[in-house]
Structures are given as structure tokens and as C-alpha cells.
């Protein structure tokens, strides 16, 4: 799948990769085009991200949704140039505020990391360094970019800790990560990420490791901080339900590719393809009456080394027909700013397999 965005069905002209993405505008803070990230392992090449394009506008939130192993986290790491070895960005461009991140040298990249782009990770326990106090870790973020004196950095860090809602932040400054609860740790992570009031905050499954009760608090915190600082946000999650209130646009990823992309309303109310449908069915939705039991998507996500032929979702798809294992569907715009990669997008036939009991 080389070209990602094609002209609408029956469209007059094919748009090239250099043309505008569906949500791209003059305000677009981040534009990712045709990003390909491969991991060269002993078992073969893992195509973790295989030609992904999206954009985020200033102040808006893009949710990237998918099961684990769909490439969504790698995709986010790639934005900051933090793809762990042996991963390598193979192709593509990541334009942030007009600069291609992939062409920047280390020095320039470091100026952006933690400064103009902040990042919050999944597990706050493992993501905080256990041997430094939380205060030190937060002030480090300030010090490195602002060159503040130790004392000033401490002041600023204390302030940040109270902004993210850590009570008695001055007293708890010298405490170590293990002395905090999961939610509090994630607040520390957030304090570090927003220390420099970044233009873009990438939150990689920020609530997955937390208790359900805390999840909403953290999401609220992220939301209010976004409002306060006017940040754009990429919210990466496997939980489609979680993003309903937060996101402006949603990209659904499967096996390293975007399979559906649109506004939050389109995705929620007018999903075009079976995988999105499956995701919807597998989450509790607060805005709808409980219509039945939650249904997980059957089967396992595919191997990223030996990808199924045709549509990568076909082995798990209830609607799959012969064409699905013969031809790979392309991501096409079916509706205004609503794209999907499915041979039967918006026009699903009768499911072949009903729910197994």
C-alpha cells in the first residue's frame, strides 16, 4: 500500500501524497505523511507502521485508536524521533510547525522534545526514574530548556506539580516515584510533559495502567490543561469509548495502517468498516443505552512480519468475501473527511459468521 490517500470513489483526480490530507489546513501543527517504520529483527522485518498519514491542527485533539500491536505507539514515538532500536523510520515525513522532524539534527530535535512537544507515557511507574525524586525529574525538564537556576527550577517544578493537582507539592517535591499512587505518578508525568507549555502533547495510553476511578480524573486533567494552554493533543488509546469527549478527529489503526479516519462524530455514529464496528462493540458506551453484552473482536491481531494477504483484517472479519483475501483495500474518502480502507465500506453485506455463543 504505497499511496495512502486517493481521490474519492469516481473522483476526477488522484491526489498525491504531497497534497492536502483530509484535515490538513493552514493551522495544521503536525502533518505526518506516508510514515513507514520497520523493525529489523532476527525473525524478519516487523512493519510496525506501514504508510500512515494524518494531521493535527493547533488546539485540537486527534485520537489514534487500535489494539495493542497496531503500531499506534510506535507511530507516536516516531514523531519525537524516539523509535527504539532496532526500529527505523523507513520513509515519510513528519512536519511539525513547518519543519520536517526527520531531517533535524540531534541538537534541534532535543530543542523540540519536551519543549514544544510533550509526551506522556502509558505506565507512570516504569516511566519515572526510580532513583530520582519526582521534583528533581520535573525540574530537570524545566532546567534543560530554560536554563533556570536550580532554585528557580525548583520553584517552577513545585508550581507545575500543584497545577497537575498534586497536593502539598512543596512537601512532596523530594519524594520518590514509588511513594506516589498510580494516578499521582501519572500527574507527575503530565507535569513533566507540560512543563514548557508545549504546542503538542502526545499522550500514549495515559490511563491504561490506572484504576478505572482514576482514569476519568486524568482525562479531565489532560482536557483542562489542553484548554488552558491551548495545546494540540494526540491521544493514543485502545479504548474508543474513552476518546468520545476529548477527540476532534479519530484515526483507527490496524496492523500498522490507518483503516478508518474521520471526525469523532463520523467514527462514532457512522463507522464505515467492520473493524471500527468491532471496536465500538467491544467498549461500553456511556452515551447509549446498554444494548447488549460487550463483544470482543474475535481472533488475534495479525503478525506484522507475515501479514495476511488482501485485507489484513479479513481473517477476523465477519463480513469477509473472496475479494477481501485477494485484494488489499485502499484508504479512500467515502464521505467528506471520512476515509476507510474496506472493500465494502459503508455498504456492508450480511455477516457470514454470526456471533458465536
Amino acid at each position: 500500500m504505497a499511496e495512502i490517500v486517493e481521490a474519492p470513489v469516481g473522483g476526477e483526480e488522484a491526489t498525491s501524497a504531497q497534497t492536502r490530507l483530509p484535515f490538513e489546513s493552514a493551522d495544521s501543527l503536525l502533518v505526518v505523511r506516508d510514515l513507514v517504520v520497520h523493525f529489523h529483527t532476527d525473525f524478519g522485518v516487523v512493519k510496525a507502521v506501514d504508510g500512515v498519514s494524518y494531521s493535527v491542527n493547533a488546539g485540537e485533539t486527534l485520537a489514534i485508536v487500535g489494539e495493542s500491536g497496531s503500531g499506534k505507539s510506535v507511530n507516536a514515538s516516531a514523531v519525537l524521533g524516539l523509535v527504539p532500536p532496532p526500529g527505523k523510520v523507513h520513509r515519510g515525513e513528519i512536519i511539525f510547525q513547518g519543519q520536517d522532524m526527520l531531517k533535524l539534527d540531534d541538537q534541534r530535535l532535543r530543542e523540540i522534545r519536551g519543549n514544544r512537544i510533550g509526551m506522556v507515557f502509558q505506565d507512570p511507574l516504569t516511566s519515572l526514574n526510580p532513583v530520582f525524586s519526582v521534583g528533581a525529574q520535573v525540574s530537570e525538564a524545566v532546567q534543560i530548556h530554560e536554563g533556570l537556576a536550580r532554585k528557580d527550577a525548583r520553584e517552577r517544578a513545585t508550581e507545575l506539580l500543584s497545577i497537575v493537582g498534586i497536593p502539598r507539592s512543596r512537601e512532596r517535591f523530594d519524594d520518590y516515584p514509588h511513594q506516589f499512587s498510580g494516578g499521582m505518578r501519572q500527574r507527575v508525568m503530565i507535569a513533566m510533559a507540560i512543563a514548557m507549555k508545549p504546542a503538542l502533547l502526545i499522550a500514549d495510553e495515559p490511563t491504561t495502567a490506572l484504576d478505572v476511578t482514576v482514569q476519568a480524573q486524568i482525562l479531565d486533567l489532560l482536557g483542562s490543561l489542553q484548554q488552558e494552554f491551548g495545546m494540540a493533543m494526540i491521544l493514543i488509546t485502545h479504548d474508543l469509548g474513552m476518546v468520545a469527549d476529548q477527540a476532534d478527529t479519530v484515526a483507527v489503526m490496524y496492523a500498522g495502517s490507518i483503516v478508518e479516519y474521520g471526525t469523532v462524530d463520523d467514527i462514532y455514529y457512522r463507522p464505515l468498516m467492520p473493524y471500527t464496528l468491532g471496536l465500538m462493540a467491544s467498549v461500553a458506551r456511556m452515551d447509549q443505552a446498554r444494548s447488549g453484552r460487550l463483544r470482543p473482536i474475535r481472533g488475534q491481531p495479525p503478525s506484522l512480519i507475515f501479514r495476511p494477504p488482501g485485507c489484513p483484517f479479513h481473517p477476523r472479519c465477519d463480513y469477509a468475501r473472496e475479494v477481501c483475501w485477494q485484494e488489499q483495500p485502499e484508504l479512500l474518502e467515502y464521505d467528506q473527511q471520512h476515509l476507510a480502507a474496506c472493500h465494502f465500506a459503508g455498504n456492508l453485506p450480511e455477516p457470514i459468521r454470526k456471533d458465536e455463543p
Partner: protein
Amino acid sequence: MIPVVFGATLILFVMLFALGNPIDSIGGERNLDRSVRQTIIDKYHLDDSLPKQYISYMGNLAKGDLGESILQRRPVKRILGDGMPWSLKLALTAIAIETFFGIVAGVISAVRRYSFLDVFTTIGTSVLVAIPVFWLGLMLQLLFGVFLRNTFIHLPVSGVDAGWRSFILPALTLASVFTAITARLTRTTMLEVMRQDYIRTAAAKGLPERTIVYKHALRNAMIPVITNIGLDFGSLIGGAILTETVFSWPGIGRELALAVLRKDNPIVIGGTIILIMAFLLVNLLVDISYGFLDPRIRYD
């Protein structure tokens, strides 16, 4: 600590008792005159039964008396006391070498993984671990004492009378295996730590690689490494038997080795007790220092 000392001395007593009467090693080729033999046996109670010898030894030990060497006719405490400072100094020097070279080599090979330096370190450490210590000592003596004899890097190959220069070859020899192991351990733990999430966090903050490696990663990687070095120190104090022999080092390792060969049992037992206590003490110190290195343990 006390049960360990009890157990160890009991085992030693039984083993040494089984090896025969130490009186046999006095006199060498010549047989001791009968009356002289009896006089010495009486003086050191060498014909007493094993339990009787053990009880009387432990009684003296409780009073802090380690007895007297049968052959050297000096208090064991003084014999070991003379050797201990030299053994300690040598062990400390070796530890310094181990810490510095082991950690530097380990960090470099972890950070520059698969580079020339990494491969070099990996091969080098394998070789060092494989070389018998005494052979390495001999080769160093041959190199620095013979081949480089008339050059400015010539080094003393035995004894302690050339000041700090005397320490170089024995300390290098003693440190060799430990340095190699430390380098290996540092490399492994550094690689392990570099994969941790908090390293990614540090990078996401925009920290330069130097800060990430030497502040965030090293500090965490050092916890097992320092613990290991601490424990090494315990073994180094008594483990220098071969090195001390090869380099004529006046420490307790050599004294102990000689005592074993000559069945000078009071030195063997007293020396072992001292080494056990030193080892336990070092272990205790390591446990305590652990808290300073790892805040998670400090607060638990």
C-alpha cells in the same frame, strides 16, 4: 554471624584433625626427638581429643584469643594483624581498579554496542576471566620485570618496598577477573536499563544522550554493580592467596596458604575466622549502602 563462625570452625576442626597431627610437619626431613616431640605436643595440647580441642579453642575465642602458631610461635592475632593492612591495601587498590576500569569499559560497550570498543571489551573480558590469576601474574612479571627492565615503565615484581609502584602489578593481577566481571555486569545492566521506560521519558524531555546515559541510566545500573563490587571486596581480602604468593605480598592470603601447606592449624583456623568476619562485615555494609543507592529500599 556467630552461628557461621561456629559452623565454619567446627568444619575446619574436623577437616584439619583428619589431616593428621601438625606435629608431623615440624622438623621436615628429620624426626623430632621423642622427648622434644612430647614437650611440644603437651604445650599445644596436640594429642587432646577433637571435642576437647574444639571446646578449649572456642573458649579462648570467646575471650578474643586466637591462640599461638605452632611453627611461628607467635600469637595468631599478631601474625594476621601484620598481614591485614597489606591485604587491605592491596584489596582496596584492586577495588579501585575494578570499579574504574570495569565500569568505564562496561558503560562504553553498552553505549557503543557492537562497536570496535564493545567487541574488544567483550573479547578482553572473556580472556581475563579465563586466564588463571597466577599465570597472568607471571606474565606481567615477565613483561614488566624482564622485557621492560631497562625502560622507564619497568615495575617492581615482588615485595612492597617500592612504594605505590609495588602495588601496580599485584593489584592489576588481583583485579583482573573482577574487573572483567564488573565490566560484563555493567554492560548487561546498562543495556537492560537503557531499555527501561524512564530512559525514553528522559529522552522525551529533550535531555542530551550524555545526561541520559551518565545520570539516568548509570545511576540505576550502578545498584547491582556496586553491590557486586562490595561483595568482591569481601572475597578480595582473603582471595588474594595466589596473587600474594606470586608477588611475595606480605598479606594474610599468603600467610594462610603457607599455613595450610605446613599444617599450622591455629593460623588456618584463626585466619578463616577473620576472613569470615570480614566477609560478613562487608556484606552488612553492602546491605546498608544499598539503601543509599536505591531509594525504594531506603523507605521500605
